[in-house]
């Protein structure tokens, strides 16, 4: 029997080209402005992520904020942050969107899986609409379904977003549940304490950044 070499030789570039293109798009330079999707949510997470945003230039614009629908504090915090920002950058733009919360604190694993799947379904049209270049998140449960829906858009070739995860300052020795999952799916995974950098070699340590 003839070895299937010609077929493989034909198929190989067909496989490699899109992969290489994906890899190039993955970490390539981009032209500003970048559409930024920010996953805010629950308590300290929003405060922390707004601090991260405070030093970003207007190259990261517009900022699309997504947060859990059970979160009552975040919207006010974001609005006041953006109001201040608009004083410096007059053409500053942002949007706010709510999605169902994927996991309440202390919710059981099995029901978490169901609610997370529901959140992913709900997030898909939203990420499709927003088509972010960059997703920034720091650990509220809501960030997992948002990032997974963005990864799905990438796999479908619709839009490949770069995911940057910043673990909360609270996490000194262990990662949050969202962190443990997104360690494998983020492009850049930033931790704020040296112990975590040692345990998770792929992570980036820039010191305390909030």
């Amino acid at each position, binding site marked *: 029997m003839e070895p299937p070499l010609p077929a493989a030789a034909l198929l190989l570039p067909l496989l490699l080209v899109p992969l290489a293109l994906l890899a190039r798009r993955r970490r390539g330079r981009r032209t500003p402005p970048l559409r930024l999707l920010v996953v805010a949510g629950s308590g300290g997470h929003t405060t922390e992520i707004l601090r991260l945003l405070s*030093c970003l230039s207007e190259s990261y614009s517009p900022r699309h904020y997504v947060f859990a629908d059970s979160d009552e504090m975040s919207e006010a915090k974001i609005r006041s942050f953006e109001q201040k920002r608009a004083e410096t950058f007059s053409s500053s733009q942002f949007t706010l969107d709510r999605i169902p919360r994927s996991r309440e604190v202390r919710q059981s694993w099995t029901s978490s899986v169901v609610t997370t799947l529901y959140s992913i379904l709900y997030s898909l049209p939203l990420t499709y609409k927003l088509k972010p270049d960059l997703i920034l998140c720091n650990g509220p449960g809501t960030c997992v379904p948002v990032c997974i829906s963005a990864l799905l858009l990438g796999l479908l070739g619709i839009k490949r977003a770069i995911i940057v995860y910043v673990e909360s300052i609270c996490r*000194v020795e262990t990662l949050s549940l969202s962190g443990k999952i997104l360690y494998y799916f983020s492009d850049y995974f930033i931790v704020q304490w040296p112990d975590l950098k040692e345990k998770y070699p792929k992570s980036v340590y820039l010191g*305390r950044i909030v």
Partner: protein
Amino acid sequence: MKSVFVTVGTTSFDDLIATVCSPAALQVLQNRGYEKLVLQVGRGALKPALHSSPPLAVEAFRFKDSLAEDLRRADLVISHAGAGSCLETLEKGKPLIVVTNEKLMNNHQLELAKQLDRDGHVFCCNCSTLVETLQSMDLSTLKPFSPGQPEKFASFLDKVFGFQ
């Protein structure tokens, strides 16, 4: 007027409020020259059990939109282990005692409180050792806490995207 501000954040931590309001704790605070005690009690019981004539003026409230003013006025802050409360207090340069809640299991907030204690920025204790801590603490040994540097995050991202 030297004052102490106690904060439990958005949760309730009645054990902490009760311990701070115990005759022993109030006595130590008075001995240390504090004259006023302000309590932010969150979802806990609003009226702490006080004996008839406490040696300090005691005020209590549940929540405020911002605790910045209370923190600014305080000479000593006693806080639950919530990251937000701890970091906000340290940024204002106020001496801080973090009281951990033994009743919360697997509480990840403890990681931060213990690290801040190891680095000498706060005194960390629990309700049963609070009075002892108030007695023995030397606030001058606390190390200042330098603010975080979000600009490093911004320059990291700028490098990633080639904006620099």
